[in-house]
Structure formats: C-alpha cells, structure tokens
C-alpha cells in the first residue's frame, strides 16, 4: 500500500518535471523561431521604411517649390511673374504627384503597423490559458509574420469556411501554423502554391495547410513528428517544429496528421475541438 503511494508521488513528480521540460522546450523553440523571423521581418520593414523616408525628402522639395510660389505672391511684380514661377516648378506635376506620394506613404506606414502588431500578437508569451479565439485572425497574424519567408516561394490561397470561436491558446496555435507554413515554403523548390483551408465539422474545427512541394516519402512520413528528425542542412532546421506542433495540438485535445504524395505535395490537417472538455481530470 505504502509503496504504491510512493510510486504514485514519484510518478507525479516525474510527470511534472516532464511537463516543465516540455514547456521550456516550447519556449526556447518559440524564441528561436522569433529570432529566425526577426531577419525576415527586418526585411519586410526595410522596404516600406525605405520608400517612406525617401518620399519625405521628395515632399520637402515639393514644399520648397510651392513656398517659392506662395512667397512670390507678395513680392512678384505682375501676375505673369507668378505664372512663370508656377510653370517653372512644374506645379501640375507636383499637385498630382503629391496625392500619390501621400497615399503610398500611408500604405507603407499601414504595412509597418500591421507587421508590428502581428509580431506583438504572435509573441504573446504571458497568456497561456485557453480562451475562445478567432482562428482566421490567428492565421492572418501568422501570415503577416512569415510573409517574408513565403512571398518569394509561393502564392497563398485562402479557402476559409465559417468558423466559430475556438477554445485554444491562440499564440500556440499560431506557432503550429507558422511551423507548417515555413515547412511548406521550404518544400517548394521554385515557386509554388500554399493553400490554407478551414472548415467547421460538428464539434470540430479543421485547418489544412497544403503545398505543392516535393512531398515526403512513405518511409519518412512516419518519422516527421519525431523530435530532431530533419532532412534540412545544419543551421536550417532543428527538427523540432513538427514535434512541438504535435505536442501543442495534443495539449488541445486535437489531432495533426500528414498526407503526402512525393513529387506532388503535402497536406497537413489539424483537427481541434471547438470546446475544450472540462479541465482537471486528464492524465
């Protein structure tokens, strides 16, 4: 009797330790992923910042020209003089280009804002509790964060169904989606297609991420969820992406599976319960 009790507490202790190790692994994988993304995000931000900055300098030039005209209102001797200045500064061009300059710069600022808020959404470490969340929003956030890894590799096709809010830890689900998207992009040699599909089936929500990349051979398909299994060169992959994704989905009482045809592509399917069963009595 007593021995059994000791074994039981020992077991619990080990389980708790495992759980903690898992959490740490998850955290460090997340940080690694963010580090890897930072370079891509910098690239994404450098483009809009580049043209906004340059546009501001052009704007300064335009304003100087326009002030030359308005200042001359007081000093010019005749209307002809004013008209001459107006012609010299290419007023009509300034006028029409100013509109474009401002619209394009605003577009750039919006782009930067979106990227920053996606990064913020994405790196939320504090909220580790289950909350109803909008999966489509999570997918968009993730797409914004990994845009730089994807846009040169694939066209993204969204085939979204109607989804209710899902009980989940959205930051973790985002991480799963990111792993799948980055894997899909890596599997494409030149330029391909990545389809993101969602649908609601009874008590479950389904997310599929499908690529038309090189695919996975049947003997490797059994191994992809193993920790440290990777076919990528050192420095490119740690082989943790899918095993952590598997853990996260399992924690959500869901399933993740892969279908693949070598040479044609791969489809990962995540099935999540819409509502989490009551917490507490799981082992």
């Amino acid at each position: 009797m007593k021995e059994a009790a000791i074994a039981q507490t020992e077991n619990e202790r080990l389980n708790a330790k495992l759980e903690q190790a898992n959490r740490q692994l998850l955290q460090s994988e997340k940080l690694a992923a963010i580090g890897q993304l930072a370079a891509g995000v910098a690239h994404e931000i450098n483009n809009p910042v580049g043209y906004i900055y340059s546009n501001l300098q052009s704007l300064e030039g335009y304003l100087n020209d326009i002030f030359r005209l308005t200042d001359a209102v007081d000093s010019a001797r005749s209307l002809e003089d004013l008209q001459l200045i107006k012609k010299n500064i290419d007023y009509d061009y300034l006028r029409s280009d100013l509109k474009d300059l401002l619209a394009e710069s605003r577009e750039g600022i919006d782009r930067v804002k979106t990227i920053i808020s996606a990064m913020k959404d994405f790196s939320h470490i504090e909220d580790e509790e289950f909350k109803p969340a909008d999966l489509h929003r999570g997918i968009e956030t993730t797409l914004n964060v990994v845009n730089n890894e994807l846009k040169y590799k694939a066209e993204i096709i969204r085939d979204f169904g109607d989804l209710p809010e899902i009980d989940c830890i959205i930051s973790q689900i985002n991480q799963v989606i990111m792993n799948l998207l980055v894997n899909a992009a890596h599997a494409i040699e030149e330029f391909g297609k990545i389809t993101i599909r969602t649908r609601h089936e009874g008590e479950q929500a389904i997310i599929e991420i499908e690529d038309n990349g090189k695919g996975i051979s049947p003997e490797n398909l059994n191994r992809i969820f193993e920790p440290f299994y990777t076919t990528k060169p050192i420095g490119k992959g740690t082989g943790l992406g899918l095993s952590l994704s598997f853990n996260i989905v399992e924690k959500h009482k869901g399933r993740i599976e892969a279908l693949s045809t070598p040479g044609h592509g791969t489809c990962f399917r995540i099935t999540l319960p819409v509502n989490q069963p009551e917490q507490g009595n799981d082992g």
Partner: protein
Amino acid sequence: MTRIQLVDDEPNILSSLRRLLKPQGWQVDTFTQVEDALGALLEHEYAVIISDYQMPTADGVTYLQFAKQKQPDAIRLVLSAYGDRASMIKAINQAEVYRYLSKPWDDYEVVAAIKSALDLYQLHKENQRLREENDRQRAELKAREEELLRLEADSPGITRVRRDADGSVILNHD
C-alpha cells in the same frame, strides 16, 4: 538620352525612386516584373541598371547576370533590404555589381552612386570610342605604308623625293 532601368517587385519603391531621380532629367524605366525588364533590354540601351535582390520569380543577381550578357556596358547596382554577406558576395562575384546599396537608402547616396556609375559608363564608352579611333587610324597608316612600299617597288627612289622649303621638288642630284 541617358537611360536607367529600375527593377523591384514593390511598386511603391519604384515610385519613390522615380520621384527622387526626376530632377536629374534621366529617362527612368521601372519594372515590377523581371520578365518585362528582360524584354526592355532588347529594346533600349541602358547606362545603369538597378535591381532589388529578393524578387518572386528570379533573384536580382540572376537578373543582373542576364543583363550583363545582354548589355555588358550597362553598369549594374543592387538595392536590397537583405543585407547578408552571402548575398553581397554573390552579387559581386557573379553579377559584377558596381555598388550594393541597402534599404532604407539615403537619397543622396543613391543619386551619387548612379552619377558615378554614369561617369564610369561614359568613361567606358569614351575608351571604346578612342580604341576604335585608334584602330581606324592604325589601319589607315598601315594602308599608306603599304602604298609607299608598292610605289617604291614600282619606281625605286620615288618615295625619297627631296623637297625645298617651299615644297617644290628638288631635281638636281649633286
């Protein structure tokens, strides 16, 4: 007219560069598609070609390599938001780019880089012109020499006619 080609998949980058370069009075052709930029190489002669590094269908270095084959005289520059060493080395070794500019850029730096690229282009052109001129003159000289040899062979001594200060032929042999 001085023609410059700009290639970048982001149209807003192209607009801002066009604004920046407008006061210089150069003909600036912009392209968001590598394929179109390639097509333009067949139609116009460019002095300077500036390309982004990362683009969907082909990377900038591959494009510039192509451009180098089609228009070896055009000076090539890269304007990239992706400043890693590997890409720079590739650009220099494979596409022989003249400058590697980074985004966000400094307007002054971009204009200065293009101006010095244009100077280099003019210099190459001028060199080429001088070399051709030189070749032509040399060929002319050679033809004249041959003519002299032929004359001398026909009538020995004819090429050694002596002349007076005023140009008249001196006939008396002393």
